[in-house]
């Protein structure tokens, strides 16, 4: 009798309470802004290492520099996982003075990607068209991937702002095909990373890295093992690892508290009339706060994810104890 009651209790938690507890558990660390450190894996370290190699190459060969290309292949739905990856990678590149080219592989990511590029570029005083460029929407995918084999300007004859990429931007003169790219990165919640591996790496031997959502990560492990993928950031954990590494580098390079650094960045700067920058050269209090918070976004997410994982494990254990008790009770009858 007792067994029956206990098993029925354990097996019949109401859905609304399960949801409510999940909501409270996830929101508490996010509201309290708790962060969670994570261990660093080989897959993520190798991306970081690759960018460091490009930096070293650019230092040794200032006339023959390499750039990186970031394809914003995600929609806001997967922003929680993909956004910190993109932030960390952009920060790493700009810290190391590596030119960055970018576009969006999905229509929902076009404006989002641009906003991220401009926001992070502003943190390092980078100029649009010289240090970075955003080419808008890379549609159709196949043509976009193949055009980089010769000259991407055939495909992207204008940038996001509609300006001719042949005449207006020095960065496009130097970096317009795979030969001038040290690394191509697809940050995505879709299967586009596999497309880049097939075309950019398969046809043109371009080194490709991927930042993908956790559910997509398992699909890319074979490419890691075969060497077709330089490295991979898988889900929030991968993002947190990269974020940690870039934070260490930033502390080492900037040697200042980040708030002081950002507040002082444009203090004595007078924007010329033909300001080529695509951002305001000053920081409001909200912008400062946002910028500081975005440096630990993935690790804040990891704190919430940790609790959520423990909660799901606890639920599974409870349900299985209930199931075993029910089985025992039924076999006794």
């Amino acid at each position: 009798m007792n067994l029956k009651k206990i098993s029925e209790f354990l097996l019949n938690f109401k859905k609304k309470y399960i949801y409510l507890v999940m909501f409270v558990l996830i929101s508490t660390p996010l509201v309290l802004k708790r962060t969670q450190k994570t261990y660093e894996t080989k897959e993520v370290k190798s991306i970081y290492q690759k960018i460091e190699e490009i930096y070293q190459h650019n230092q040794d060969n200032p006339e023959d520099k390499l750039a990186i290309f970031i394809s914003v292949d995600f929609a806001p739905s997967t922003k929680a996982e993909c956004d910190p990856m993109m932030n960390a990678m952009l920060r790493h590149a700009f810290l190391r003075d590596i030119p960055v080219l970018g576009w969006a592989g999905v229509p929902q990511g076009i404006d989002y990607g641009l906003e991220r590029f401009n926001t992070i570029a502003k943190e390092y005083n980078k100029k649009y068209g010289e240090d970075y460029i955003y080419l808008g929407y890379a549609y159709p995918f196949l043509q976009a991937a193949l055009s980089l084999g010769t000259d991407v300007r055939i495909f992207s004859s204008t940038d996001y702002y509609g300006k001719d990429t042949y005449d207006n931007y020095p960065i496009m003169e130097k970096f317009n095909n795979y030969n001038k790219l040290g690394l191509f990165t697809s940050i995505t919640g879709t299967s586009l990373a596999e497309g880049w591996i097939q075309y950019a790496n398969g046809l043109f031997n371009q080194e490709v890295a991927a930042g993908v959502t956790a559910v997509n990560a398992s699909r890319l492990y074979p490419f890691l093992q075969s060497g077709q993928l330089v490295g991979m950031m898988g889900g929030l954990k991968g993002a947190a690892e990269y974020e940690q590494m870039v934070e260490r580098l930033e502390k080492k390079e900037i040697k200042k508290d980040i708030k002081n650094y950002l507040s002082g960045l444009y203090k004595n700067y007078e924007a010329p009339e033909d300001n080529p920058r695509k951002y305001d050269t000053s920081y409001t209090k909200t912008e400062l706060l946002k910028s500081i918070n975005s440096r630990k976004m993935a690790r804040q997410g990891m704190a919430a994810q940790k609790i959520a994982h423990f909660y799901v494990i606890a639920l599974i254990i409870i349900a299985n104890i209930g199931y075993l008790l029910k089985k025992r009770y039924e076999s006794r009858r």
Partner: protein
Amino acid sequence: MKRKYPMILTFIFGMIGLFLKASPILNEKFVDYLLLWTAAISSFAVIYSTFNVVKHHILKIRKKHRDMMYSYVTFVGILLMGVTGFVGHYFPQSNWKLLYDNLYQFVRTPLDATMFSLLAFYISSAAYRAFRAREWQATMLLIAGFIVMLGRVATGPLMIFADITNWIMLVPTTAVMRAIMIGVGLGITSTSIKIILGIETSYLGGGK
């Protein structure tokens, strides 16, 4: 006739693609033209799909479907984002651009993110109801799931799970995914050949 010409075109362009790939000299000379043409053709797909969405929702409203309210919402969304995005793009200093940015940032982004984040709730409920150690295969899956969930967030004494998680992802997962991908790759190749040779015609529609 309706099917004959598309099939001939598919064959010709399929063969062109093959020859270009086989000959580096031809490839270098003509691949850029091919890219421009296909990019132009793909633009028509966008027009066609927009037309299709509009047609679908007009029919819904005409038939007074019980969910026709959502069709109105779709039209309002398309018009609002379309007009503000289009005008805002050409007048970046105008209020249209500001409106578009705000709609994107404060309506589109949270809506999209909310839909995806609901997964956390569904998974907790589904795991509670469905994840049972009924048979040994299910028990194995359960144990692997436990280890990976712990391994992903491991710190301190739980680090042992991190090592086992890495092994699970790098060995069994990779092996299974590779087998699936080889199967998919062979399937894509054979379907492509069938399409080029006109054996597979379902892409033309019509059911025959």
